């Protein structure tokens, strides 16, 4: 079965979104300005095209049925990857393709190791993260990010800036250095699926990341859904504590169906949302952030949700009435619509923006067969056959930044630099406001390119004590050998010939000059080719 990581090692982060901030009430602008820290000097760039945004949302909500996007003028508006058949053509190695999807960026060492293992063995290894020795990363995290282990009570008393920075930096550090790369990718996925905005819940995101997302990222979906439903952070994020008998707040009731399980086309009605909200009354938060069931505010009247009738019961105490929602959540977790919805989302995330119906059907069937076993679904998605035809995807800023770090292999004692750069690129971890999570659409992100270029330049020029990029392994004796070193390290050796030539051309005036090489590396990270995976 999947993997339920033990408490000692990993824990902590995820990816997705947030910026730091203050706790409860701080305004958005204060959040944006407060913790720019490392970023302050950097420049932000970025354009989100109209097209971009909307497609990102509508694309998710209403599945596009266009057989084949019309290629032509309005191309930039299409949701699918318009890209680079040329890019695809140069990625001939199936193991390389697997690494690009299952890792945060391809590195030469990991490519060599994966090739030695072979496609299947590598994938199987990655699907069992608890069997991968990752103690160095666990030790670093334990030492440097102590707030990740804290209880809500302890977190409440801690420095909130530190709490915020640590969850973000731990997420970045793990994504960059953990050997459990596929696991970290799934943490990224679920962090968006079960999005929580730190601006609203503050330190509680730290507990959700640890006890929900990271605990079940490669486990069973029903357990994950149930854990999320018992998360104080999620309760607070979706206003569940405000919901009580006679005065319901439907926010969580709606989202657990619309976003977490059956999907917006899951066949429920507004009446179902209202009724489920009644069923969920009593699910709340106490103390500094402990999930609690409070029978005193539960609605014991008769209810009907998704065709299922719940008779009235006598007003009770203790856990009386809680089982009503438990039963609904259990049935949502394994609902056929959930199988479909999760299959689509996972396939889109791991494989391609517009998967075929057949691909999704296979994943959906696996969900049904294995009762939502996440590794089993991943196995059906990341097949060699699928990977060899999947169009490329565009790295989101977090993905891009982590890939850059992995490619360069710096000596690192702090990733605060990267946190600031990710903020600058518009992808502040755990800061996406609405419960749908950061979009995974090329058009949403592709306008923020200047910030990305400046981040590339920043990373490749680091020589400081806390983040040192040793450029020596990238320095060749000639422009051509130098370009080859960069191409091997950053691209698994697979680029177009014209790209290789242009990189060499840039190096040519001074191929052994380290400042020049650093700039060439920065350009390579900025190049269109490094944006795809």
């Amino acid at each position, binding site marked *: 079965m999947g993997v339920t990581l033990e408490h000692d090692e990993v824990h902590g982060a995820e990816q997705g979104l947030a910026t730091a901030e203050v706790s409860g009430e701080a305004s958005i*602008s204060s959040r944006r300005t407060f913790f720019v820290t490392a970023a302050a000097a950097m420049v932000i760039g970025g354009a989100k095209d109209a097209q971009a945004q*909307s497609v990102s949302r509508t694309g998710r909500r209403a599945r596009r049925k266009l057989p084949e996007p019309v290629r032509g003028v309005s191309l930039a508006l299409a949701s699918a990857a318009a890209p680079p058949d040329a890019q695809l053509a140069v990625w001939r190695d199936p193991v390389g393709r697997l690494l690009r999807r299952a890792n945060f960026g391809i590195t030469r060492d990991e490519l060599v190791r994966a090739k030695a293992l072979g496609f299947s063995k590598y994938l199987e290894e990655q699907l069992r993260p608890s069997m991968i020795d990752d103690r160095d990363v666990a030790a670093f995290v334990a030492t440097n990010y102590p707030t990740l282990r804290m209880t809500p009570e302890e977190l409440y008393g801690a420095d909130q800036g530190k709490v915020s920075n640590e969850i973000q930096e731990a997420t970045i550090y793990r994504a960059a250095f953990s050997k459990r790369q596929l696991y970290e990718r799934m943490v990224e996925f679920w962090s968006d699926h079960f999005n929580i905005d730190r601006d609203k819940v503050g330190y509680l995101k730290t507990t959700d990341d640890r006890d929900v997302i990271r605990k079940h990222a490669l486990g069973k979906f029903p357990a994950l859904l149930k854990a999320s439903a018992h998360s104080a952070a999620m309760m607070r994020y979706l206003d569940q504590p405000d919901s009580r008998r006679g005065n319901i707040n439907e926010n969580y009731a709606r989202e657990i169906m619309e976003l977490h399980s059956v999907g917006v086309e899951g066949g429920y009605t507004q009446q179902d949302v209202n009724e489920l909200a009644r069923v969920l009354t009593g699910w709340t938060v106490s103390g500094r952030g402990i999930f609690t069931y409070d029978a005193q505010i539960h609605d014991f009247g008769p209810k009907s949700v998704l065709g299922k009738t719940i008779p009235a019961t006598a007003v009770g105490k203790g856990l009386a009435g809680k089982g009503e929602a438990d039963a609904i959540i259990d049935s949502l977790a394994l609902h056929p619509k959930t199988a479909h919805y999760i299959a689509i989302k996972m396939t889109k995330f791991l494989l391609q923006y517009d998967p075929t119906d057949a691909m999704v059907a296979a994943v959906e069937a696996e969900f049904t067969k294995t009762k939502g076993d996440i590794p089993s679904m991943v196995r059906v998605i990341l097949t060699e056959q699928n990977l060899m035809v999947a169009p490329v995807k565009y790295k989101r800023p977090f993905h891009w930044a982590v890939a850059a770090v992995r490619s360069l292999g710096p000596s690192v004692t702090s990733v605060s630099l990267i946190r600031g750069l990710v903020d600058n690129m518009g992808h502040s971890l755990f800061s996406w406001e609405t419960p749908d999570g950061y979009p995974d659409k090329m058009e949403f992100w592709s306008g923020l390119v200047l910030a990305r270029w400046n981040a590339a330049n920043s990373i490749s020029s680091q020589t400081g004590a806390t983040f040192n990029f040793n450029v020596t392994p990238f320095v060749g004796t000639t422009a051509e050998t130098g370009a080859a070193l960069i191409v091997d390290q950053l691209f698994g050796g697979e680029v177009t010939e*014209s790209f290789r030539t242009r990189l060499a051309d840039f190096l040519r005036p001074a191929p052994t000059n380290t400042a020049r090489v650093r*700039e060439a590396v920065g350009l390579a990270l900025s190049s*269109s080719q490094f944006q795809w995976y």
Partner: protein
Amino acid sequence: MAQHEHDTGCEEYNTLSRRAFVGAAAGVAAAATLPAWLPKVVLAQSASSRDIIVSVFLRGGSDGLSMVYPFTDTNYYTGRPTVAIPRPDSNSATRGIALNGQFGISAAMSSLVPAYQAGNLLVVHGAGLVDNTRSHFDAQRFIEVGKARDANLVTGWLGRHLATSTPMRSNAPLRALGLSQGMPRTLVGAPKSLPIPNPAGFGLGGSTTTRTERSAWLRGDYEAVDTSIGAPALDALNTVTLLNNINFNGYVPSGGAVYPNTGFGRGMRSAAALIKADIGIEALQLDIGGWDTHSGQAPAVVNGNMARTMTDLAQSMAAFHADAMTGGVSYRVTLVVLSEFGRNVRENGSQGTDHGRGSCMFVMGPGIAGGRVMTNNWVPLARENLESGQDLRVTIDHRDILSEIVARRLGNPNLGVIFPSYVPTVRGVTL
């Protein structure tokens, strides 16, 4: 050409809509540039008669009753023993200034009086969201996207305005920007728009010696790839060139304007510089925070918490008015200022005010019917007149104000797209 008449049942509104449409040589050339997600729309006027818009969001829920206050209402003073602006006719050193016989503006905002007297500044009171959320999170979102409780709507009202209008300058690399860290939701959906917190610093980092060379390398790289990724990259490169030609640091405001040296003041100064540079920018969005005054509000204390924030806002607006809205300028600008909600009429136990409902908006510009405090059935702030017994009611939907600006100042008739499912009431905001 399916104009969204069906969204607009009101007779008065239809007149407005038609009038805005007249002269719009529009409609042509639309298909190729309009985002696919938009319903069919009529392109807004492309003529230079359109205003440039500057939109300012007061983040945190600004206490409208401390900015512009009903000094003749005794309920105001009894409900706010420590959080009230002294009457204009009092002897207090921090008394406000009467705007008319009923409303005064706080002393901290006195720098706005000249614009008001010039007829360029309109105050709209009791304005806000009809939806009664008191969550910052929801209220900001609802206002910025232009509709409450619609999870499918993720683009901003101003973004949709730009998406449904032809560029004021064809081929402008940049039509809109958020002077903010990250793209403000109000602008999401706008073509050719960027979040640029500091326009003076928008450029490629690294060695200045190699900058041109690296820039050229990147241009070559992105020119050779698919437009999906290439076009925005080239837009950014072109914008760099554009902004680098503007001497922000050496910018000298006209009209003797002096912007406060605050984040917001510098932002407004940059906004003026960008507008005057005449590079085709037609919308700017700025934020100013610090309005969530649950305790120690002190709006009428020299250097008090809210007094400082109001001073910053007012001085920046006043400087912008002198700099960019007066004198012989070849463009016209409309500035609109709003917040997600106001605050309770009665102060709380910590000399502050909690989240409320109606607040006040400001609209400024040469095309605005200013010099007035606009209200709709304003009543004394007695408990029985308040929403939930505690709040100034929202009697003017903020979308009424924005719709009229969009239709009449920005020349865009597509209100059904910009404010979906809403039929605005014309309030007479514009000249």
